[in-house]
Every structure is written in structure tokens, then in C-alpha cells.
């Protein structure tokens, strides 16, 4: 058989059914005596909810708008509460793609007035995009930007409009409101024309062109007669197979209403969509809103109970809240209310979507938020590290054995990827001025070649971030920030530099540089093996080669052990990492992840901004007053600190320790049965043989209790650091 003689078939409720090329799914269904929803006046214009069916698994699709395709599966049963099979759980790609386009003018609707408007714009030399539902371009919404978004046969299209949006969507035909208006066999005049043109027989036809004469439709499921009032006011039964509704039109102006008032573009409406036709009379009986099954009696009921505003009537009666979003019922609801209240209320807010589309379609072009990867990401994964998202980055949580990692730091040597740290270079004649105003420390007392741990405060005097300032020369400094805080910090620094009009150059190097922390009692030995003869002293920094790679080496310590932080060009990170591991083999080196680090730093009582601090952490509350020099000239947050220092202290971040296993982070503290705060960080300390914690503790009468209960167990307030109080190991 040749292809052309093969009958085209789609599947309706499990049955293969032939259709003719050019049919919409609806026409194909009607051709075969199927009626999608069981009744209601069909419009074939995409306006009404009467042709809804489930197509290829998507429910509530307007079948008049979907071209019939061989093999497409249609189910008319979506309203029968059929429970679909549970969806599979695997990664789902969006069902379509999305494209962006830019134009001076968008014309929506390509009827006579739309064509003319587009032509006019083109002759004026403007770039024009035209969209028309009949050509498979359904405009679903008009958004700020201005953007006109359409579902097209090639996927989603987002048109960015520079000058004008012209709405030429024509007019929709009015539906009848009368008893029996949800029978099958009702259709608008245009629909009837289209069906006849498609070769469907409509049987005996009655045309209704005067709403005032229409009394009701009769029939079981299909219309068999129309009852009309004759000139004498007498009811006449007219037998029929099809009732053709020719009651005039109502402007299809939803998109115009949606777009009106958008900043930055002109919005106009032309043609039939622009007509301000009167609303039809609302009869006393019949269904008004078919989507939500709202009858005139329901409108009357809510009206009688004080729901008079159109928006309230909509919400109380639910008219206009279904698939067609008021397309069919709005003119009648307005007219009903005008009859009752004496004024015609404006149409309700036109919200997107103008036409429903699936979430799969909407999702097209969406992306996940990126989780950043360090230059060592591949190296960690190759080492089978357990990777976690933390502070916006993928970071190794452990490499399989956090305890071994922990002990490598405490007893031998270990390395950690700290490339995620925020890193910034500041240069310029005003560099010192900028930093002195930004930070609460006296930056002027940092000597060249030295570093200092610093807090960064916001205007409210609350801790924003912490990090390190290192002085390279009188006019050049490097800054570090927490991994999660780096982006905010960059904006913060630039914003102030600009506000103060300072002469500085700023370079964010967070992603440009890799950073590896070498830590443990044998760190110096390892670096010696890597060729570093003169490692920096505690809190100083040098530029030198490590394993042949140029680095800036900072000496500080977060783990509590002798530590060197090596900052280097990102490209060199893998080589440096591998070389250090090789050179450290006989020192029992192993890399450590975040899990071990969190414990190591907690033994030292080092806070993590964001974990141990809250939105309202003042330096005083977290015992960092030493980091704030109130005797220096103004700095960001100074006024707030001066003010809040006068208020009594209500809570502090303090160290706690207890026997036995750690509580969960977040566990409550109680004193005499009363809530007294909560744990922010807790770990079993392998080296101390007890649990150590940081916690927010409430003061009572300006005093912090010495003992608290956590989950029914006593804990003791303990000075931090818990481990190596003098810091001898870090300074070794």
C-alpha cells in the first residue's frame, strides 16, 4: 500500500479512528461521533472549554487547537476521575525547547486588522513578529520586559519587544446562556461553518440569533429541540440535530488588558478586539461558567449574600477560574452584576496564562542554579570523595574516612581544597582608606607582609562576614572572605568604594586562584620537600614557589595545627595537589574534607559565620569585641555598635562541653527547665575525649549560667579554644 492510501488514524478512548488530513483532534472526534466533554456550545476558536480532552497524557487540552496526528492518543474521560498510573521517577527533560527573539513590534492575531497593522509597521521600517493561534502560535502571556510569550509548534517563543505590542485578537462569539446549554450539538456560527467546510453533516439545523427569544435547549445528551419564544410570546419547539448560535461577539481583549500599562512599550488594540461592545443580557437560567459549573442561580445566591464586587463574585462563585479563565462567562457575569447593581464593572484582572500550557512546556529553557566547582573538582571525584553542596560550591565532605582525615591533620599532615574562599585584590592610593572605613580593625597597623583575621560588619553592627586582610604594600592588600559570603562581599566592597568615591582598583580573584591548605605538625616538613626553604612566620605571608608552582603562602590556622594556605593560579591546582600528596606519602599524608574540618575548627572554638552567627550577631555577642576598635575613626557599623553596646547583653555565643556523644546541632539548652538557647555546632572531639560545642546562651540578670542541660544531659560552659588554648601548635 502506498502511504497516501493508508488511512490516517488516531486513538480515541482506545479505539483507532480515521481522520482527514487537516483535521483538528476535535474535528476528527466529531467526524466519528465522539464528543469530548459530553456537551456545551463548541466554538472551534480556542475560547471555550467544551472541547477539552486528554491528549497524549495531558488533560484538559483544547482539542480544537491541536492538529490531529496519526497515533495520537485521546481520552475523553478526564472528568470521570480516572486515576492515572503513578508517574515514573526518572529525570524528565522539558517536553519542548525555548527560543528568544527580539523585535520592534509584535502583532498578536493575523486577521484583517492584524495583517494591516503588521504591514504598516514593516513599511515604517520596524522589525515585526506576528503571532497567530491559527498558525500554531498561542500567546500565553505578556510580561514586563516587555516580553510576549507564545507556545509555538517549534517550542516556546519569548519575544522581547522594544516598541509596541499590537493586540489584534478579534472577537469571540457569545455562548448561549439558557437551560440545556450543556447539551451536545450546540455550536457557534463560525464553528458550524468550519465543520461544514470540513465535510461534516450537521443534520437539521436551527439558528439562534436572538437571545431574547431563546428559552431552552432540550434533549437527553444531544440537543433534539430548541424552545424559542415567537412574536406572540408563545413557546415554540423546533426539532433539530444542531443548534447554531449566532448571538454576536465579544471582544477578545484579554491580552490587551494584560499588557495595558506595561512600562517601556506602547500597547494598542485594533480591529474587533478593540470594539467596546455592550455585554449581552444575562438570562435567568442556565449555566454561565462551564469550567466551574456555575449557573445563574449560583450568581444570584452569592449576590444575595453580599458578594457584589466582580472580583468577589468570581472568588465566591468560582466563575471564571477554570480552563477558559472567563473566556465564556465573563460577559454574562458582568451583565448579571450590572443588572443587579446598576453599574457595569470593569472586567476582572487579566492574568497570565491567557491559554493554559503544560508545566513541561513552561519549564523549557529553565536551568538549575549552578553549584560551583573548584579547579580540583575532578581530582576529588576521581578520589571518590563524597561531594556535598556547601556555600554554593561542590566540596568534598570526606574521602571515605573522616577519622583518618582528622588524625592526619592532628598528627601528621593533610591538605584541603579551600579554593572556595572569597579572594580579592585591592590596589590604589586609597586602598588603606577604603579598608579602614570598611573594617572595624585598625588596618593601618597591619605591617607589610603580615595578615590579620578580621570581622566585617554591616550598618546595623551585625557580623556580615569574616576573613583575612593581608598587606602586600602600602597601596596593595589582599582580602579573603567566607566561601558562601564572597559574592555579597564583592558587591559590598565595590559599593562602598564607589559611594565614597575612592581611588582604588579591585579585582575579585575568587575563581581565578586555587587555594590549598597544608596543615598538620608535619606541614613545614612537607613544604620543605616541595622546595619551600623559608616558609612564612605565623600571620605573615610570602610569595614563593612550592613544587615549582608560584604561590602566595599565608600562614594562619583554622584547624589549630601549623597551617599554610597556598594560593596559586587555578590551572596549577591539580598538579600542586598531586605533588603534595606524592611528597607527603611517607609522612602519612591524606586530604581532608569538610566533615573533618568542621570538627577540627570546633575544637579550636573558631566560628563559622552563618552557622554559628545569626542575622543579629554583634561582635559583643560572639565575644569578638577585640576585633572592633571603637577608638578609630568612623567605620561601617561603628554607630550601631556604639548604640547597641549601651543595651544590656541578652545572649552570647559560648563554648560548652559535655560527656558522651554530641547532641544534634540545633538542640535546645535549658536552665532549670527553661529554654536558654541552642547549640550551633557540636562534635565529639576525638582528641579531647568529650563533646565540644558552640551555643547561643541567654543571659539572665546579665549573667550567663555555667551549667545547662541538653536533651536531659548536663553541659558545662567552657572557655574556647577547647584544644591547645595557647595556640602553641598553630604558632609552632
Amino acid at each position, binding site marked *: 500500500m502506498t502511504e497516501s492510501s493508508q488511512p490516517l488514524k488516531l486513538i480515541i478512548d482506545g479505539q483507532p479512528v480515521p481522520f482527514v488530513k487537516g483535521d483538528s483532534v476535535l474535528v476528527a472526534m466529531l467526524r466519528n461521533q465522539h464528543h469530548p466533554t459530553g456537551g456545551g456550545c463548541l466554538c472551534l476558536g480556542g475560547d471555550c472549554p467544551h472541547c477539552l480532552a486528554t491528549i497524549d497524557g495531558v488533560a484538559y487540552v483544547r482539542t480544537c487547537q491541536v492538529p490531529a496526528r496519526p497515533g495520537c492518543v485521546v481520552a475523553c474521560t478526564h472528568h470521570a476521575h480516572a486515576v492515572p498510573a503513578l508517574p515514573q521517577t526518572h529525570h524528565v527533560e522539558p517536553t519542548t*525547547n*525555548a*527560543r*528568544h*527573539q*527580539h523585535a520592534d513590534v509584535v502583532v498578536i492575531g493575523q486577521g484583517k486588522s492584524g495583517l494591516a497593522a503588521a504591514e504598516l509597521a514593516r513599511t515604517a521600517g520596524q522589525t515585526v513578529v506576528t503571532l497567530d493561534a491559527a498558525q500554531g502560535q498561542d500567546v500565553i502571556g505578556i510580561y514586563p520586559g516587555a516580553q510576549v510569550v507564545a507556545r509555538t509548534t517549534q517550542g516556546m517563543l*519569548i519575544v*522581547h519587544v522594544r516598541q509596541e505590542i499590537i493586540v489584534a485578537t478579534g472577537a469571540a462569539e457569545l455562548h448561549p446562556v439558557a437551560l440545556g446549554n450543556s447539551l451536545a450539538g450546540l455550536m457557534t456560527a463560525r464553528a458550524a461553518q468550519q465543520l461544514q467546510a470540513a465535510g461534516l453533516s450537521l443534520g437539521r439545523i436551527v439558528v439562534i440569533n436572538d437571545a431574547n427569544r431563546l428559552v431552552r435547549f432540550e434533549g437527553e445528551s444531544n440537543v433534539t429541540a430548541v424552545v424559542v419564544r415567537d412574536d406572540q410570546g408563545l413557546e415554540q419547539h423546533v426539532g433539530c440535530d444542531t443548534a447554531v448560535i449566532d448571538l454576536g461577539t465579544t471582544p477578545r481583549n484579554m491580552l490587551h488588558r494584560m499588557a495595558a500599562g506595561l512600562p517601556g512599550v506602547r500597547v494598542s488594540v485594533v480591529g474587533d478586539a478593540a470594539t467596546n461592545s455592550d455585554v449581552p443580557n444575562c438570562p435567568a437560567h442556565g449555566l454561565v461558567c462551564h469550567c466551574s459549573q456555575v449557573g445563574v442561580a449560583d450568581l444570584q445566591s452569592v449576590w444575595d449574600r453580599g458578594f457584589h464586587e466582580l472580583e468577589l463574585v468570581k472568588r465566591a462563585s468560582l466563575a471564571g477560574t477554570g480552563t477558559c479563565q472567563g473566556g465564556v462567562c465573563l460577559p454574562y457575569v458582568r451583565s448579571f452584576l450590572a443588572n443587579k447593581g446598576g453599574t457595569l464593572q470593569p472586567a476582572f484582572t487579566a492574568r497570565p496564562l491567557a491559554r493554559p500550557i503544560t508545566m513541561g512546556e513552561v519549564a523549557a*529553557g529553565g*536551568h*538549575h*542554579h*549552578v553549584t*560551583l*566547582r*573548584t*579547579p580540583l*573538582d575532578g581530582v576529588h571525584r576521581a578520589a571518590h570523595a563524597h561531594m556535598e553542596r556547601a556555600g554554593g*560550591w561542590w566540596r568534598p565532605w570526606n574521602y571515605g574516612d573522616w577519622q583518618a582525615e582528622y588524625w592526619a591533620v592532628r598528627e601528621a599532615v593533610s591538605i584541603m581544597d579551600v579554593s572556595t574562599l572569597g579572594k580579592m*585584590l585591592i*590596589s*590604589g*592610593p586609597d586602598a588603606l582608606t577604603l579598608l579602614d572605613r570598611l573594617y572595624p580593625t585598625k588596618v593601618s597597623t597591619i605591617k607589610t607582609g603580615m595578615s590579620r583575621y578580621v570581622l566585617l560588619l554591616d550598618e546595623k553592627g551585625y557580623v556580615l562576614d569574616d576573613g583575612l586582610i593581608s598587606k602586600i604594600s602600602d*597601596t*596593595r592588600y589582599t582580602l579573603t572572605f567566607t566561601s558562601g559570603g564572597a559574592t555579597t562581599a564583592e558587591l559590598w566592597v565595590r559599593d562602598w568604594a564607589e559611594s565614597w568615591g575612592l*581611588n*582604588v*582598583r*579591585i*579585582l575579585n*580573584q575568587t*575563581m*581565578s*586562584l586555587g587555594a590549598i591548605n597544608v596543615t598538620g605538625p608535619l606541614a613545614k616538613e612537607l613544604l620543605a620537600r616541595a622546595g619551600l626553604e623559608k616558609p612564612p612566620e605565623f600571620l605573615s605571608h610570602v610569595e614563593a614557589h612550592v613544587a615549582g608552582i608560584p604561590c602566595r603562602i599565608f600562614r594562619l590556622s583554622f584547624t589549630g595545627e601549623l597551617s599554610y594556605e597556598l594560593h596559586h*593560579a*587555578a*590551572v*596549577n591546582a591539580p598538579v600542586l595537589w598531586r605533588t603534595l600528596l606524592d611528597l607527603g606519602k611517607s609522612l602519612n599524608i591524606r586530604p581532608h574534607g569538610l566533615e573533618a574540618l568542621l570538627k577540627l575548627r570546633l575544637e579550636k572554638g573558631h566560628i563559622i559565620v552563618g552557622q554559628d552567627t545569626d542575622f543579629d550577631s554583634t561582635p559583643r555577642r560572639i565575644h569578638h569585641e577585640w576585633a572592633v576598635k571603637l577608638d578609630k575613626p568612623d567605620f561601617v557599623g561603628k554607630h550601631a555598635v556604639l548604640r547597641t553596646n549601651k543595651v544590656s547583653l541578652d545572649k552570647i555565643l559560648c563554648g560548652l562541653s559535655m560527656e558522651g556523644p554530641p547532641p544534634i546541632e540545633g538542640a535546645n539548652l535549658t536552665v532549670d527547665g527553661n529554654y536558654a538557647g541552642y547549640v550551633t555546632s557540636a562534635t565529639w572531639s576525638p582528641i579531647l575525649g568529650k563533646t565540644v560545642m558552640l551555643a547561643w546562651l541567654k543571659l539572665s540578670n546579665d549573667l550567663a549560667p555555667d551549667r545547662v542541660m541538653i536533651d536531659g544531659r548536663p553541659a558545662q560552659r567552657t572557655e574556647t579554644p577547647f584544644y591547645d588554648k595557647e595556640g602553641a601548635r598553630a604558632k609552632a
Partner: protein
Amino acid sequence: MPKLDRFPLTRIVSTPALLDGIQTSTTAIVMRTAPDELFWLGSPAAPVINDPHAIIEHDTSFVGTWLSTQAATAWVSANCEWQLPTTRPVFAQGEVAGLPVKLWIEPRRMLVLVQQPFAADLGERLQ
């Protein structure tokens, strides 16, 4: 997935006026990423700038790929909300496919650059 190459470059941060005065080259790619910063990629090396405070840093963290005009147009139109400039060659930057990219657009091809932390996602999203 297209292979992403490293594009080592020099970043120069200085005053807008001094950067305005830099002599660009016909062989190197010079991208003015901000009023106070430019990227210099390729040879000859970046000229010296008369600013003792300038920050001049070699940066090895950018990776990317050259796309044909056809591939570039398809990718950009599917993933970019803003309109690319029409002059050639030209530098543009902004969000494409949810990533902060820098684009160098020549008559017949386009260079797409991101910083390393975004590289894996760029690879995926270029498909």
C-alpha cells in the same frame, strides 16, 4: 559535548581613562569587561600601562570554545534573553543559559568563555 579549552588571559584593572587609551591590537582579543577592567587574550602581550596602581594579573581560570556562527546563533537564541550587539568583532557579556558568559563575536565565529567553576555546566548546557 564540545571540548572546552583553557584561554589564559591577562586582566588589567586601572582607571577608565587609562584603559580607554590602551592601543588595541589586531591579533590579540581585547575585551573591555568593565569601565575599570579589560581582558587581553593572545599575542602580542598586553602593553604596559602607565599606572603604578594598576592590577595586572595573569588569569588561567577561563575556559571556553569557539562556535560557528550557526551553532552560536542557535545556542544564544535558545538561551539568552538579551540581544547580541550587531557590530563585528564585538565583545558582549551577560547571562546565557543561566551562566555568566563572556562572548567575543567575530564575523564567522564566536568565542564563549566562562570561569572554571562554571565549566562543567557550560559543557552540559552547550549540548
